[in-house]
């Protein structure tokens, strides 16, 4: 068991730099999730930790060992791929034991370890089958089993659930969370699905264009984002953003046609800002009529109402309870000004 630490990790492909000096500390036994939009470098970063991509500059340490220039197999990591990457010509048992076979363990030991991992993952009845005869969920379980058998210091998951259907995804997510508790191992998990990120992570690393935007516990990122990108990325549906301007005594929001008093540092009159409102912090007001409901999505417990202001700005509002808007309604908006987040319009940084 060991933590992982990255110091100034940089990745270049020729002249193009894709990872711009990442500093990150992953504690022993921690479940860290890399999230970000596609092309943000999260998979590349994971593959650098695995050793499948060379690190152009900087240091990667696992435990207290500098592994920056070491072979992937020597790093004590195991990886689970999105496409499962099972060896199609081997049975489940051989797949899971392959790593041990390559490192010269004797047969009895391999059989014992594979058997133990198979029991944990409920793969016992499938051991003699080949991957082609397994369902998607079973294949992913075998892939996880193959990682578990090697007893690595660090587990790496590269979007492991992306190829599964919605129902299986939920099931496997719970399974992975259970495994983390059981093995108490360090896990690094890449996903673009924020539900996976929020539910699994001890710590989320939000990446964008090869840079870390923010690191923190899931709720910390949700409640206290550092910048507009993180605020918009975490939370579903994503935060509503409205243009505003700092005026004496608050922020004038043209879309809402009012001046908000928000308890934050005042950036000085005339500064362009963006205010952020989470859909779950908004309520529709039937007494007022500044906006039109253009579309509603009823999910059962909650509904999402899509509003349009006179100026054409769009907002999403979460509605609960018995009275909900329907298409075409004219409504107003109420919210607690204390919940409003303010971001600098240019840099996107949070104004606290």
């Amino acid at each position, binding site marked *: 068991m060991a933590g992982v630490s990255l110091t100034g990790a940089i990745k270049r492909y020729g002249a193009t730099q894709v990872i711009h000096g990442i500093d990150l500390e992953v504690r022993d036994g921690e479940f860290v999730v890399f999230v970000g939009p596609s092309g943000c470098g999260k998979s590349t970063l994971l593959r650098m930790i695995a050793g499948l991509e060379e690190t152009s500059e900087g240091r990667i340490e696992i435990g207290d060992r500098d592994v920056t220039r070491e072979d992937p197999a020597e790093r004590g990591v195991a990886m689970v791929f999105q496409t499962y990457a099972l060896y199609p010509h081997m049975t489940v048992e051989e797949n899971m034991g392959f790593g041990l076979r*390559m490192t010269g363990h004797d047969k009895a030991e391999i059989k014992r370890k594979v058997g133990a991992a198979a029991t944990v993952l409920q793969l016992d009845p499938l051991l003699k089958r080949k991957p082609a005869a397994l369902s998607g969920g079973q294949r992913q379980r075998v892939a996880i089993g193959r990682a578990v058998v090697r007893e690595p210091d660090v587990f790496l998951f590269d979007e492991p659930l992306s190829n599964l259907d919605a129902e299986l995804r939920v099931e496997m997510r719970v399974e992975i969370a259970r495994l983390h508790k059981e093995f108490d191992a360090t896990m690094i998990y890449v996903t673009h699905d924020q539900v996976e990120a929020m539910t699994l992570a001890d710590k989320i690393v939000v990446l964008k264009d090869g840079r870390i935007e923010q690191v923190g516990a899931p709720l910390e990122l949700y409640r206290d984002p550092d910048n507009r990108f993180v605020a918009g990325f975490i939370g579903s549906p994503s935060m509503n953003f409205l243009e505003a301007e700092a005026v004496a005594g608050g922020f004038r929001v043209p879309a809402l046609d009012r001046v908000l008093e928000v308890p934050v540092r005042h950036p000085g009159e005339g500064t362009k800002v963006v205010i952020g409102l989470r859909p779950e912090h908004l309520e529709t007001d039937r007494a007022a009529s500044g906006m039109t409901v253009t579309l509603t999505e009823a999910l059962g417990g909650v509904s999402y109402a899509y509003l349009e202001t006179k100026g054409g700005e769009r907002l999403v509002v979460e509605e609960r309870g018995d009275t909900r808007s329907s298409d075409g309604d004219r409504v107003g908006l109420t919210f607690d000004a204390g919940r409003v987040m303010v971001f600098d319009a240019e840099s996107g940084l949070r104004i606290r």
Partner: protein
Amino acid sequence: MPIIVQGLITILIGVGGCVGYFYLSNLALDKVIFPAKETPSRRLVGAIICLIIPLGLLFFLYVGPTVFGALGIGFLALSDVSTISALLAVAVFLVATFLLFKAFNTLFPAKGSSVGDNINRANAVRPWLFLFPAIFVLGLYLVYPVVGSFWRSLFGRNPNDFVGFGNYVSLAQSPDFRISFFNNFLWAIVVPAASTFLGLLVAQLTDKLSWGNIAKSLIFMPMAISFVGASLIWKFVYANDADIGLINAVRAMFGFDNPIDVLQIPFWNNFFLMVILIWIQTGFAMVILSAALRGIPEETIEAAILDGANPWQLFFKIKVPQIMATIVVVWTTITILVLKVFDIVYTMTGGNFGTEILPSYMMDFMFRDDGRATAIAFVIMLVVLPVMVWNIIEARKETR
């Protein structure tokens, strides 16, 4: 007739014949044999039309002579048969037409519930209408020659002289045949093995190289040379003269001043001949295996790297097993080819110095003793058959 007109007429007849066949055969199926509507009169007309062509032929063959003779254009007559038997034949055909019509009407009446059955029957037969031309042509050019060859192999040098399995017995007793059978066995083992192995090696080694494609093109090039052409090239390589032959030039470089003819070294000369075919076929194996190697999912390789496999293990435990089906197809395809090639032996040694193989041995008897030659051909076919069946099975597995 200008040749261009002849060509055009050929095309017209060919295309028109195909279209006509498909159109008329479907028409006959839907309207005459299994009609979905109750139209007995149309059925009768159809039955008559179906028989017009045979009747026309009959006319030319049997009735024609008398009529043409009477008209003074007897040269158009194709045979001379008496008028009575001709009329008899016509009568037989008319009766046959009537019976056919009756049979259709009673077996597949276009009435009530059997209308639906008729549609089903027509649809069940239809695929065979489309398959028939292909099956017929394949049968004519593949199955018939096999049967015909076998039949011919039961006769001696004189095609009227039935000898039963005499040819096979005398083959089995002939030392020449045994030598060529053994040599052919060597060829069938060594050439596919060496070509596939070298092809795989080249495919793997050139995979990640920047100039890999150029290397591959060079190695593929011999594929474009005919076997006889390749043999000529290698005749120079093997030439019994240090100024021409590469091998003897190398020998001379090491100070051996007596040139040798490698094609006369007993037993080993076989291998020098095999080298030529290996040289030609490596390119083929390389191209197919290179494509197969690229089809291996990259992640399985990365997973194996993480699992601690070294490059050697990566190749033999992860890559090769995943392309095994392709390797088998390449191997068996080359084996089948080996069992057919006679050109190399024929041009290089003419089968002398103990280098005879079955196809060249067959060539020795062709046109002189066709019975014996076809017997050898049949032996070759029996040897190729199991390899071919395996090849087809594996190739099918791969396309699944």
